């Protein structure tokens, strides 16, 4: 029987991990991730979870250690945040290149300098190209559910790509909400066993000694990288399968890589990711009550990037109104250019222009907000929609200022 508990995002992740039965867990503490690994350690201690828990000396070691365990063909877990994720960068590429089906939780937090422990998405956005699937949870429930689904996706033989499950630091990791914790039997039926089947590719086959983690010259190397890319792109299908199957069995969640909200007839569409989506939805309900046609697209998976889904949702035949302006609200900046999510979205839009050339693309505005944990207020979100309305009417909005920092007034 599933049970309803009052859990923080971190505790929900720990429950999701417990139910997924990893064999080896390694971690180094960092705020705001620490509670996840403390809970897991307690679960190992109380024998709720039959795993080896290792308190290692750094994040670099944590990821290297679980890579070793995965090479032996067992399910693993680690978690980190911010500076820790950056320190893991070398092993992020190593593990994805080695096609190890790891699952890691990242508590999204700002990057030094200046030092700041609060939430934004600079850390995972900076590592978008590391070959990991990236998913962003909005609620504690989704965090728990995504951990379980992440194992199913990562370990699918077609995918064999590690998955990073992102939770907004503090706002999601430390906020309590009612969470349905599924029962073990149902999760056991949903996930494959935590020991990979004999002959699982890329792991040690104990009857046939061979060397893993090889070198490749210029010729072979490109082939490896192509296949890594091809399989990541193709992972969208297994992701939908897993999401759909999860929804069927557990009665929640979805198969969508992008989750639309009141978007089908919206003229002004905000695109965002993570926990801020909840506030945007509230604002949309209010503005709709005033007669404004506004909507939301919440990106759940940033890798593989769901370009086609995005184009279908913005321009597809099922739309009831044309999109007049698009906003992208994100908590990071790719210095010297735009927000990392805006870069992704705009690349997908350009391909749209080439594919079907609609009567010109709608204007796009990029809102950079919430850096270093700054609150994003309802008022600010309303002002963003105002900007979009002006951009849509090409009325008094400055297209040259397509990237807008929100909340700078508060800064010295």
């Amino acid at each position, binding site marked *: 029987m599933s049970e309803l508990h009052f859990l923080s995002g971190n505790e929900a992740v720990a429950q999701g991990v417990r139910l997924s039965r990893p064999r080896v867990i390694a*971690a*180094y*503490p*960092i*705020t705001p991730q*620490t509670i996840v*690994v*403390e*809970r897991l*350690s*307690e679960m190992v*201690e109380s024998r709720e979870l039959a795993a080896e*828990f290792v*308190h290692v*000396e*750094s*994040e670099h070691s944590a990821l290297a250690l679980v890579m070793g365990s995965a090479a032996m063909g067992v399910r693993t877990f680690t978690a980190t945040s911010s*500076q820790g994720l950056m*320190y893991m960068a070398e092993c992020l590429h190593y593990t994805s290149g080695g096609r190890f089906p790891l699952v890691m939780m990242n508590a999204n937090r700002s990057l*030094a300098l200046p*030092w700041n422990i609060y939430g934004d998405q600079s850390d995972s956005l900076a590592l978008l190209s590391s070959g990991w699937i990236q998913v962003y949870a909005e609620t504690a429930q989704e965090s728990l559910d995504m951990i379980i689904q992440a194992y199913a996706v990562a370990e699918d033989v077609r995918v064999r790509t590690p998955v990073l499950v992102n939770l907004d630091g503090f706002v999601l990791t430390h906020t309590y909400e009612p969470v349905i914790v599924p029962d073990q039997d149902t999760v056991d039926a949903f996930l494959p066993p935590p020991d990979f089947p004999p002959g699982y590719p890329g792991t040690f086959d104990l009857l046939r000694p061979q060397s893993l983690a090889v070198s490749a010259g210029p010729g072979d190397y490109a082939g490896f990288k192509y296949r890594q890319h091809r399989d990541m792109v193709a992972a969208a299908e297994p992701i939908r399968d897993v999401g759909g199957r999860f929804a069927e069995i557990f009665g929640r969640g979805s198969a969508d890589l992008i989750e639309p909200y009141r978007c089908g007839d919206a003229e002004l569409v905000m695109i965002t990711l993570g926990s801020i989506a909840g506030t945007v939805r509230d604002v949309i309900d209010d503005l709709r009550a005033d007669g404004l046609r506004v909507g939301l697209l919440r990106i759940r998976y940033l890798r593989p990037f769901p370009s086609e889904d995005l184009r279908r949702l913005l321009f597809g035949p099922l739309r009831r109104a044309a999109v007049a302006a698009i906003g992208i609200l994100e908590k990071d900046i790719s210095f010297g250019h735009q927000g990392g999510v805006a870069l992704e979205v705009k690349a997908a839009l350009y391909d749209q222009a080439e594919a079907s050339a609609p009567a010109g693309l709608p204007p796009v505005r990029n809102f950079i907000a919430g850096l270093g944990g700054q609150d994003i207020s309802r008022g600010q979100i309303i002002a963003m929609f105002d900007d979009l309305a002006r951009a849509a009417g090409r009325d008094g909005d400055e297209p040259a200022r397509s990237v807008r920092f929100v909340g700078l007034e508060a800064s010295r």
Partner: protein
Amino acid sequence: MTIQSPLTVQDFKSDVKPIWCPGCGDHAVLLAVTKALVELNTPREQIAFISGIGCSSRIPAYTNVYGFHGVHGRALAIAAGVKLARPDLTVLVAGGDGDGLSIGGNHFMHACRRNVDMTYVIMDNEVYGMTKGQASPTTAPDWCNSKLTPHGTGVSPVEPVRLALAAGANFIARGFAGNPNDVARLIVEGVHHPGFSFIQVLSPCVTYRPEQREWKQSVHAGQDQPPQLVAEAMHRLASDDGFTTGVLFAGNRPAFMPERKVTASFADIEKKFAS
């Protein structure tokens, strides 16, 4: 040149108020550092104070010399960069047992063997204070008050002074935050001693290791004459109980110093530009 009155402890404190818990040993280490700076009688602008990340690593911000709050575990690498760029500066480095011995452990070994002229203080509380109380490399294997290691680590701890000796540090000492005057003296000696000087300061974390308040009963002074030979120091440290304070080794390896010295005066430089 005007005659200046001697500097005081207050002259080396910044106006930032420490946010350490009341009773934390780090307050006393701060006092010891400022006392040492008074004793060294070096102008503020001749001192660089580098740290990593942790409660202890906040210390440079509470002084008013050149400070640098570094990357977690990398204080020693940053400090070596500072010293090599400006050999004329007195370089102090400080941080915690976690910062210096877990995530930064490899730098410790290489700083000892490279022997760049600087003085490194590990404020050892056998715990990660900043992240709320996890075991560090110096934590006893049976300490089981951390949620991450509820049965204890079961792993044999690092003895920082032995590690320093084995890796080639040129000056090794241990102090106790409860005796800030002694710690100040050790820092002064460390700065005067050429090459890499390492000082382990037992600095209780009253919040996550309240039992460390008892350390004042355990510490005892070592022999007056510190060994100058590695073999002798090793022999003594073999039976060390972890609470012997004082200088434990004073070697005579030449310090790693760049040949380049700052010889040009401002007047010379100005002349060059004028021509």
